């Protein structure tokens, strides 16, 4: 079906190198520069790691990463990754569908959204020490977005464990949304019946909406989103057009009847 189309389209994608994926990152817990996460995240200990699943679920609790991923189906997903700053990469993630995890937790009737929270480890996070933004970093999805088969929880890249700067040991990946929605180093997943607050929306509600779907027609107030530069092409790489929903048109039906200009 629709997903088959996406998989076929993925065949043409050329993944970025491990070096590119791990040296050009936004992870404000470790600083605001692009190389800060790679330079400063080495002391974050990701094993052991626990994730709390709570809210409107039948089986709440705090689970070790191993228990959490125990009976999940691990697979590789080669996804486009589009940052709100108008650069892009192609990344071969390893992970499992968030839907499987939520189904295992047992979603209760009436739930509408899922909230996520990043670890706050001031001892090893200099961005947290300097309070460059308000921490913990929080994100959220509507339940149907969270349950979509394209939405995954990633634990690796290129078959290797996730690098700290990429959000080790477990992060969200929502390929049709701007990268900041794909929250890193997750310690809490909360199923809820209201739209949760999200970090960049709190910082600049006019610039970053709750949905933040990749959309070449709706510009960021300070820069156009019509085109993007694929990282890795060097000094003379040219821009490419940005695709609606980052090239994942199968998610369009999630937003039927919604004005994507006001719900940006």
């Amino acid at each position, binding site marked *: 079906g629709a997903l088959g189309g996406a998989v076929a389209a993925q065949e043409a994608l050329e993944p970025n190198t491990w070096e590119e994926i791990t040296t050009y990152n936004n992870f404000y817990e470790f600083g605001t520069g692009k190389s800060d996460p790679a330079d400063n995240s080495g002391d974050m200990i990701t094993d052991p790691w626990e994730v709390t699943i709570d809210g409107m679920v039948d089986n709440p609790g705090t689970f070790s990463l191993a228990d959490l991923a125990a009976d999940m189906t691990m697979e590789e997903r080669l996804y486009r990754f589009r940052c709100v700053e108008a650069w892009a990469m192609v990344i071969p993630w390893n992970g499992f569908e968030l839907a499987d995890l939520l189904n295992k937790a047992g979603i209760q009737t009436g739930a509408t959204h899922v909230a996520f929270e990043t670890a706050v480890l001031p001892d090893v996070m200099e961005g947290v020490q300097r309070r460059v933004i308000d921490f913990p970093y929080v994100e959220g999805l509507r339940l149907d977005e969270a349950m979509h088969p394209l939405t995954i929880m990633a634990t690796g890249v290129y078959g290797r464990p996730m690098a700290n700067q990429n959000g080790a040991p477990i992060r969200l990946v929502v390929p049709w949304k701007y990268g900041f929605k794909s929250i890193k180093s997750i310690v809490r997943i909360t199923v809820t019946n209201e739209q949760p607050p999200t970090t960049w929306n709190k910082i600049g509600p006019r610039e970053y909406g709750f949905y933040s779907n990749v959309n070449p027609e709706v510009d960021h107030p300070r820069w156009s989103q019509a085109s993007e530069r694929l990282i*890795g092409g060097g*000094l003379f790489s040219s821009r490419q057009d940005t695709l609606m929903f980052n090239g994942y048109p199968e998610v369009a039906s999630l937003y039927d009847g919604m004005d994507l200009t006001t719900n940006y």
Partner: protein
Amino acid sequence: MIDTINTYARKIPTWALYLLLVIPIPYLFYSAATGGMGIEPINALEREMGDLTLKLIIVGLAVTPLRKYLKLNLLKFRRAIGVMAFVYVVVHLGIWVVLDMSLRWEQMWGDIWKRPYITIGMAAFLMMIPLVITSNNLSLRKIGGAAWRKLHKLVYLIAVLGAVHFIMVQKVWEVEPLLHLAVILALLATRYKPSQKAAVVSARG
């Protein structure tokens, strides 16, 4: 000490300063092309050139207060500093047009009008043009010293707009761009002359 520097400064020809300030341009391009500026060299190079433009403007603004308060005379280099700031801003803009935006004229034109930080940057660039055109002795004579000095006070506004442009490119309030603005405002403050009325009042007090 200051006298020694002034003596040496008198001996250094201005062309040497032009040469010294030109060298970083090919060096930075070479570095960007060969991986020295990370995996996203276009953005890194563009920002570097913008940063150097602003820093040269700051150095240019420092010449007068350095002379006034430290008796350090670098006046003969000020034109070279200003002209080279213009060269750097042209390179900065050129990188944006050719390498960053890949000659997407329609998108650039939209950005110039719609995005305040680009509008401000472009305004500052346009204001630099009359200054660089008149940066020669012939223009100075033709326009006349008083009018020329008045025209070149435009650099005060250019400096502030440049710093605001730098601040607005960031996603959050970053320290470095704010420091640039603070230094510029401090340098402008050294030029502040209390109005005659105020001077009279303070003289009485």
